[in-house]
């Protein structure tokens, strides 16, 4: 384990930060109440780095991704790209689109059924008025693994398989020559055998183009497959983050431990009880305490931190590449 750990940590430490969330908050009005979808997040994505953002539905991971893309405006905090804060006037946003691109979960829905593959991939270059449109489209398609590209130009999405559609979506993003891809569950609606192919494509794009990626997922196996770093999100906050080898082999936050334990073939299951997380009602103290198995089992009590778990909020984790977690109990045994 330690042999694989050192070079990764080293690489992570020397990477320059490309895209960064600083103390980001995003609020929504939800049925008259305020939903704190993202409630204080620091997250940095380095150049050529793949970061997996893991969490259950409703934890705010998609909102965080949309905010990083500039599709959502933060209530407070800043998104920084290349060190400069993102500005939200339409001209700067349009320029930003060429740097950071999006890949959505459902490739069928992400493509306009009335547009051919060529039109779908050329949409970005047309919006930005790029020269040599046909060459850009052909290059993007072949980079995304659709070769020879000309064969796909005039096909419609419904004539392609799910995997091919997702490649078209990725090609559409690549056509703008971005430096970061934000992928929201890129393989969740694809067939099992195609899944690996699309993930391998993302690794290849990183190797060939130095592309960074933020992959939003609920799938820890995906993180293990392609990510350098993983950030686990619960109720609007990142509760644990660090190099994949470290976090996924020796998780320290009880929530990460529970997520790991429900993977098939894990020896012992920790099934969380209590209400599913609701961003309009974030509990006081540690936001996980109501469902925490360490607290419920009395181990926190024994260690003498149970009272702090219930009442004392945790610091927001900083954006550092090393392993860290937001937990009173874990803090006792660093």
């Amino acid at each position, binding site marked *: 384990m330690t042999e694989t750990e050192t070079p990764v940590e080293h690489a992570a430490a020397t990477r320059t930060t490309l895209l960064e969330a600083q103390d980001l908050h995003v609020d929504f009005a939800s049925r008259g109440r305020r939903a704190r979808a993202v409630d204080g997040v620091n997250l940095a994505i380095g150049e050529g780095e793949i970061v997996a953002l893991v969490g259950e539905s409703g934890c705010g991971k998609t909102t965080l991704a949309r905010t990083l893309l500039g599709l959502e405006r933060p209530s407070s905090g800043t998104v920084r790209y290349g060190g400069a804060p993102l500005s939200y006037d*339409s001209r700067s946003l349009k320029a930003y*689109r060429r740097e950071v691109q999006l890949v959505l979960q459902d490739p069928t829905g992400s493509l*306009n059924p009335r547009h051919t593959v060529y039109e779908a991939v050329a949409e970005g270059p047309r919006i930005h008025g790029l020269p040599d449109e046909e060459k850009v489209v052909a290059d993007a398609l072949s980079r995304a693994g659709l070769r020879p590209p000309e064969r796909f130009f005039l096909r419609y999405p419904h004539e392609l398989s799910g995997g091919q559609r997702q490649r078209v979506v990725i090609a559409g993003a690549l056509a703008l020559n971005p430096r970061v891809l934000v992928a929201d569950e890129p393989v969740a609606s694809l067939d099992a055998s195609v899944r690996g192919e699309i993930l391998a494509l993302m690794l290849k794009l990183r190797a060939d183009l130095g592309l960074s990626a933020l992959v939003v997922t609920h799938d820890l196996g995906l993180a293990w497959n392609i990510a350098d770093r993983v950030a686990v999100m619960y109720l609007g906050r990142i509760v644990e983050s660090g190099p994949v080898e470290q976090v996924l082999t020796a998780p320290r936050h009880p929530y990460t431990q529970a997520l790991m334990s429900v993977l098939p073939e894990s020896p012992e299951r920790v099934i969380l009880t209590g209400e599913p997380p609701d961003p309009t009602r974030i509990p006081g103290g540690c936001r996980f305490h109501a469902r925490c198995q360490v607290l419920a089992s009395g181990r926190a009590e024994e260690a003498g931190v149970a009272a702090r778990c219930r009442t004392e909020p945790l610091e927001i984790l900083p954006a550092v590449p090393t392993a860290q977690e937001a937990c009173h109990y874990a803090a006792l045994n660093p």
Partner: protein
Amino acid sequence: MTTVAWARRKMAFGRFWTTFRRQPAGVVGLGILVVAVVLALIAPLFIDDSVTSVVSDTGKSFGAPGTDSALGNDESGRSILELIWWGSRTSLLIGFLAAALAMVIGTVIGIASGHFRGWIGAALMRVTDWFLVLPSLVTALVLAAILGGSMTTIIVAIGVTAWPSTARLIRAQTLAVEARPYIERSKALGAGHWHVMTKHVLPNVAPLLLASTTLEVASAIVTESTLAFLGVSSNKTSWGTMLRGSYDWNAASNGAWWYIVIPGLCIVAVVMAFTLVGRALEAVLNPRLR
């Protein structure tokens, strides 16, 4: 590449035509429409505006069908057949142009109110609702009375009262399209409002629009006839003004049933044909009805 694109478009049309052909009512309606439109277009080759002149006519007043004219004469001895033929040009033209006007206003307001959330969309929707509850016939009457009788006035009067239902329909479809992930993808690619509305929303509402416009033409022809019957006309012979004439000259008490029935039947036939085609188009093009 363009030739292949054309071939694909032709193929898509072929598919559409195959499905449309399976709607017998639609095919019948389309047949009637083609005949009516072709006849209206070629009318100037055979007759001219003089058929409407009350001075140059030679026939007998209220002459019965078959005597000196196939479908009888009106009060001034003009041939009903020639009047119907010539009048079809006005009726159809007003129907088409008024429907086109309603469609354009309805589409612009519908897409805009569906695309711009927040106060713009809400304001546009209130305006639409306001027009929707306005009794359109009365409004059209008042408008035509204020603006004076001319072809343009009638078209405008019908057009500006008929658009709200189109706007409602287009707005609903716009909302459905805007919820699709490809709109999010397009925005992430850098698309502005104009791009989203013209490249994604408009092509997706177009089929529905076609079906709705066809129905709109039918209702515009009826409205024109009603307005003409109520005395607001473009001062040109149309089926509606003929009906008005038959009323003014007491055709019923003179036993000239042909003067009333024939324009009436023409209106019914054409309106029915448009409705049949519109319903068939709706069934073929609206995926939600399939």
